[in-house]
């Protein structure tokens, strides 16, 4: 067998595709999409699903006033009603869920309607008034029964059915009486936790009654007694459209309800049929104000506020045109709260311990009322004054201070633009409201977040911040302090108020020192740090802030890791990190992050990410000309992050590139390169994955070769071979081993060997030989791995046989084998023997492959390799035809690879065909 002579230069130019230099990097973004101002862009287009509807609704109402189009009005009315129905339903659900009831309820015997089953009520209506006077006096009887909530609820459902049945049986008096009894249940507030649930159940019954009455009167307005239609009452009817009979019936209902002796059931009943006022008046809202006033007679705070809630709910059905009643509602609720808070007056049942519970029970009613106030876009103008909150500061000192929980919900619902324009006023309100119903600092926090939504004018911001920070500076609690400053941080940063930033950081560090930071505080700290990090373009600016590092150090756990990851992410995003102090700091942060990794769950995404971030950081570190320092840094890293496997690879890469950098430098630091390579050499063995080890060895070997360190190269290549040997490449474990990866590494090794000068002491072809023996000696090696390795060895031998090697080391001190062994007969002889053994093994090995298709492809690969390596002669053509036989037997005749290989074979063997014929 004779090696084919190759002219690599000519072949390259003949076969390679034409190349044109590209102007731009294909992955480099043409324009930076991040430059779009997200905050401004978002506001206009974004349709807030909650606010949007409110705005639309207001628009509809506006239309009505302008166009007076009944159609529109009908639409808007229905839409508004439907919306409020939905909201109310979900509010009720949340109310019941929020206060999941205790298991049992003790009920005083006044709730006889619950305990006893309903009696038949067949008394005449005239005796009804008198009978109501006989209602059992509630306080007189003290015996208390205990029933489970379940029973209570199911009894209420029964009652609802009873009322419904009675109504259908035209016994409307019974329906009303039972409904009144149901309403009376709400007088008993001793059930506390159960009260909201009770409220929902009772109001369900009352709503049903209200609807029944409404439908009845409507029917009376539409049809005469004998069923003839009087008028088709439009959806949006006026009182004048209603016939006198219907009005009479409606009036009777109000009279009947007016005769209920007890206050609370009377109010609930009137509220239930409140929308029936529409049959009597076009402006039925007047009664709202009266009803709110009447509720002042309810001394029990819980009963009173829930009654207010029902009023607000029922008023929605009237689509009221002014919010006066709501203002009174909220003011009255405030007064009730004030009583609870001050504790001046006796609210007998509620001990101080229960007050918190009481406030939490009251809160939903405030929430709903305030929400309703902002549902319609009424003029907000003098809202504060109406709520008794406003005026200037001197006046407000006379006014009672605002209840913080009420204020909270008002701020929550206020449109952002109002908050931003009246920010100073609101701050003053928050300042003056300091009671236990709601934590003051949370109101400051809420205001802060609201202000971020719509940024106010610079000067007012300043005034607000002065106030806020005055208040906040009084806080001893770190948690409260953090919550508030976190809310204002965005504003401080956006307006570049460095002085406040300093104050904030000072404040945090003062409060955080000498204490273990609690879980909730960690959350706020995390948020603060992330805001700071996002704000500063340059990480060094953030690090330069007072106490930044100090505060970072008080953090721990996952939030610390999160912040650390943010820092690293930020650090590595903007190019190389050159500042030594920054590097040191980041190193420490990485260390903290590393310490935080839980190695027991190595698959965890977070861990992976931290490892990636640390290695990215190591890659981005650049000490410039201080390469020794850089290498020391790498050594430190190796010590610090020993437990992260991926990182070692990065370290080796870094040290290798450092070596290359050193070589590129004007004066070559051979000793430095040596230490870099030594570092790599020492680091690689600790990497567990064999294939990675091998690749890193090869990489380092290449660097060493480039540096002219031939003996180092030899050693490294040997190590690579031995790590290959240590790989379990036998058939038994092929599932775990990436065969393709190994093959490509072996090919890489072979291509590297071309540049490595043969070592005369060990034997020039010591390495290819050991590779050869590795794949041939072990019968367990997979046929594919063996075949490809042998192909690589054959190609290597063929290349070595050339007079000029295709490439050389870019180092004049290292000479290639083509120079060292030019014309050496033993050199060529040895190559021939290696290659003939390889060819022999190759042909045999292919037949071992079990899978047909794979066998065919392997035969083609081998054939191609042999044709390109050897001169055509009968021996070669014999081998090739044998291989082609295998291929043909395994592959489809139309297979493209097969056909192109056949073509090449024909071309190459053309000259020696005659000889073939002779042999045959």
């Amino acid at each position, binding site marked *: 067998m004779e090696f084919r002579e190759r002219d690599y230069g000519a072949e390259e130019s003949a076969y390679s595709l034409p190349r044109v230099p590209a102007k731009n990097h294909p992955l480099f973004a043409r324009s930076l999409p991040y430059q779009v101002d997200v905050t401004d862009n978002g506001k206009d287009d974004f349709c807030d699903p909650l606010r949007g509807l409110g705005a639309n609704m207001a628009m509809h109402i506006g239309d009505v006033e302008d166009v007076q189009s009944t159609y529109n009005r009908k639409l808007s009315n229905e839409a508004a009603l439907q919306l409020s129905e939905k909201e109310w339903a979900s509010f009720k659900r949340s109310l019941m869920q929020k206060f999941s009831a205790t298991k049992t309820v003790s009920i005083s015997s006044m709730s006889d309607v619950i305990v006893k089953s309903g009696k038949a009520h067949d008394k005449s209506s005239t005796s009804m008034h008198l009978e109501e006077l006989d209602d059992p006096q509630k*306080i007189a*009887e*003290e015996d208390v029964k205990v029933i489970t909530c379940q029973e209570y609820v199911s009894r209420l459902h029964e009652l609802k059915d009873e009322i419904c049945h009675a109504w259908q049986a035209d016994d409307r008096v019974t329906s009303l009486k039972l409904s009144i009894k149901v309403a009376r249940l709400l007088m008993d507030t001793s059930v506390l936790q159960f009260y909201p649930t009770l409220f929902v159940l009772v109001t369900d019954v009352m709503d049903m009654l209200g609807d029944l009455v409404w439908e009845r009167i409507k029917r009376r307005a539409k049809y005469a*007694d004998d069923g003839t239609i009087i008028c088709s009452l439009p959806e949006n009817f006026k009182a004048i459209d209603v016939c006198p009979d219907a009005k009479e019936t409606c009036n009777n209902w109000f009279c009947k309800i007016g005769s209920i*002796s007890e206050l609370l059931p009377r109010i609930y009943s009137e509220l239930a049929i409140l929308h029936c006022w529409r049959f009597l008046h076009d402006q039925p809202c007047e009664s709202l104000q009266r009803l709110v006033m*009447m509720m002042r*007679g*309810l001394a029990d705070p819980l009963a009173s506020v829930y009654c207010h809630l029902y009023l607000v709910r029922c008023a929605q059905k009237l689509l009221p045109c002014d919010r006066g009643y709501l203002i009174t509602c909220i003011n009255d609720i405030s007064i*009730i709260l004030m009583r609870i808070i001050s504790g001046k007056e006796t609210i007998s049942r509620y001990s101080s311990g229960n007050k918190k519970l009481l406030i939490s029970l009251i809160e939903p009613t405030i929430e709903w009322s305030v929400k309703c106030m902002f549902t319609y876009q009424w003029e907000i103008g003098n809202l504060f004054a109406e709520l008794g909150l406003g005026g200037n500061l001197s006046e407000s000192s006379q006014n009672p201070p605002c209840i913080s929980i009420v204020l909270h919900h008002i701020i929550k619902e206020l449109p952002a633009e109002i908050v931003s324009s009246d920010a100073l006023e609101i701050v003053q309100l928050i300042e003056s409201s300091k009671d236990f119903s709601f934590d003051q600092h949370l109101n400051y926090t809420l205001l802060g977040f609201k202000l971020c939504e719509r940024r106010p004018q610079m000067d007012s911001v300043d005034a607000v911040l002065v106030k806020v920070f005055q208040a906040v500076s009084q806080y001893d609690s770190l948690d409260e302090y953090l919550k508030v400053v976190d809310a204002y941080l965005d504003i401080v940063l956006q307006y570049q108020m460095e002085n406040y930033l300093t104050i904030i950081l000072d404040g945090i560090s003062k409060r955080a020192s000498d204490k273990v930071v609690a879980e909730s505080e960690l959350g706020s700290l995390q948020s603060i740090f992330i805001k700071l990090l996002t704000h500063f373009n340059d990480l060094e600016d953030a690090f330069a802030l007072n106490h930044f590092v100090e505060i970072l150090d008080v953090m721990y756990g996952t939030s610390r890791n999160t912040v650390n990851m943010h820092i690293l992410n930020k650090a590595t995003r903007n190019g190389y990190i050159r500042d030594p102090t920054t590097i040191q700091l980041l190193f420490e942060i990485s260390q903290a992050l590393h310490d935080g990794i839980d190695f027991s769950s190595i698959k965890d995404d977070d861990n992976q990410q931290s490892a990636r971030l640390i290695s990215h950081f190591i890659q981005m570190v650049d000490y410039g000309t201080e390469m020794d320092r850089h290498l020391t840094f790498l050594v430190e890293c190796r010590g610090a992050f020993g437990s992260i496997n991926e990182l070692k690879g990065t370290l080796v890469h870094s040290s290798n590139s450092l070596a290359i950098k050193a070589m590129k430098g004007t004066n070559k630091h051979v000793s430095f390169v040596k230490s870099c390579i030594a570092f790599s050499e020492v680091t690689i063995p600790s990497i567990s994955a064999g294939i990675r080890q091998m690749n890193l060895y090869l990489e380092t070997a290449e660097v060493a070769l480039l540096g002219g360190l031939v003996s180092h190269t030899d050693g490294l290549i040997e190590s690579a071979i031995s790590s290959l040997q240590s790989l379990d490449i036998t058939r038994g474990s092929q599932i775990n081993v990436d065969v393709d990866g190994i093959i490509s590494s072996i090919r890489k090794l072979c291509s590297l060997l071309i540049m490595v000068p043969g070592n005369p002491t060990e034997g020039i072809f010591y390495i290819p030989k050991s590779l050869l023996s590795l794949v041939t000696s072990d019968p367990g090696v997979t046929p594919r791995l063996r075949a490809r390795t042998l192909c690589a060895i054959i190609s290597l031998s063929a290349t070595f046989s050339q007079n000029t090697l295709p490439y050389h080391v870019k180092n004049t001190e290292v000479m290639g084998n083509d120079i060292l062994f030019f014309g050496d007969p033993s050199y060529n002889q040895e190559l021939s023997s290696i290659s003939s053994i390889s060819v022999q093994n190759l042909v045999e090995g292919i037949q071992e492959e079990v899978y047909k298709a794979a066998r065919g492809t392997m035969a083609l690969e081998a054939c191609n390799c042999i044709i390109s390596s050897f001169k055509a002669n009968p021996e070669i053509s014999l081998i090739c035809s044998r291989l082609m036989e295998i291929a043909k037997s395994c592959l489809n005749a139309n297979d493209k690879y097969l056909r192109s290989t056949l073509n090449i074979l024909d071309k190459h063997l053309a000259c020696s065909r005659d000889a073939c014929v002779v042999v045959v």
Partner: protein
Amino acid sequence: MSVVLKLSRSNRIYRSSEPVEGKIVTNLPSSISHQGIRLTVNGAVNMQVRGGTAGVIESLYGVIKPICIMNKNVEVRSSGKLGSGTTEIPFSVLLKQQGENSSERFYETFHGANISIQYLITVGIMRGYMHKSLSTTMEFIIESEKVNLLEAPISPEVVVFYITQDTQKHPLLPELLSGGFRVTGKISTQCALTEPLNGELIVEASAVPIRSIDIHLLRVESILTGEKYITETSLIQSTQIADGDVCRAMTIPIYVILPRLLTCPTNLAGPFSIEFQVSIVITFQSDLSKLYPKSDPRTPRLWLAMETLPLRLVRAK
């Protein structure tokens, strides 16, 4: 076999100058012959004396001879036949004789404890000796003549009241006397029947917690027996306006819808009189009250404070 009266107005309210109109509806399985269909309209003041300031002797007599307001008998159909199935016979009855001007005589309908003023219309179908005559009676309501009514709105007559431990004529709990209380307010003392009774009230101070504040609507019925009036005051309706120890210095509205039939314009007729009162009753929290669970709310008790004011009810246009 039924006979039903159907009045032209579903609320059955008529004025004395107006004819009472309607239909007699008979529903018969087979046709019958009759000897005339007659309508009788009767209005009377019925009085009885019991309890109150009546003495033992008077109460023995009990019922006093009623005062007849009107009694009218009209033949709607002379004798004839009524077919089977539903037959409707319209009618119209004038209450007042023409030229008669005794509007005061037609008192408004009122159902009280001792006095009741009632107007009844009865239909009778005479069927000879062998058959039971068919009849049915229905009450209709008389309201004052529109021309005689006061121009609405009636002049508001509002009285300012204050209730303290010193204004009470009955003994009070010692803690009430020592702690003191003060409830002030105003309430209208003249009120149109169709309008609610309005007013307001403020609990200015009270050392003892309040349990309830109620507005009692009272009627004062007086009957002339012999030479003296026997007067009885009774409760018509009680309306709670405050439940529990309400907030001090808060205005609480008084809003009472007057019950129909149980009220009428204040009437000082001579042989009898119907007047009304409104009473503001403050109940204080007291363990003692539990011993008397069902006492008459008008009885002065140690834990009650009250203020009773005359209330003039009028019919306004």
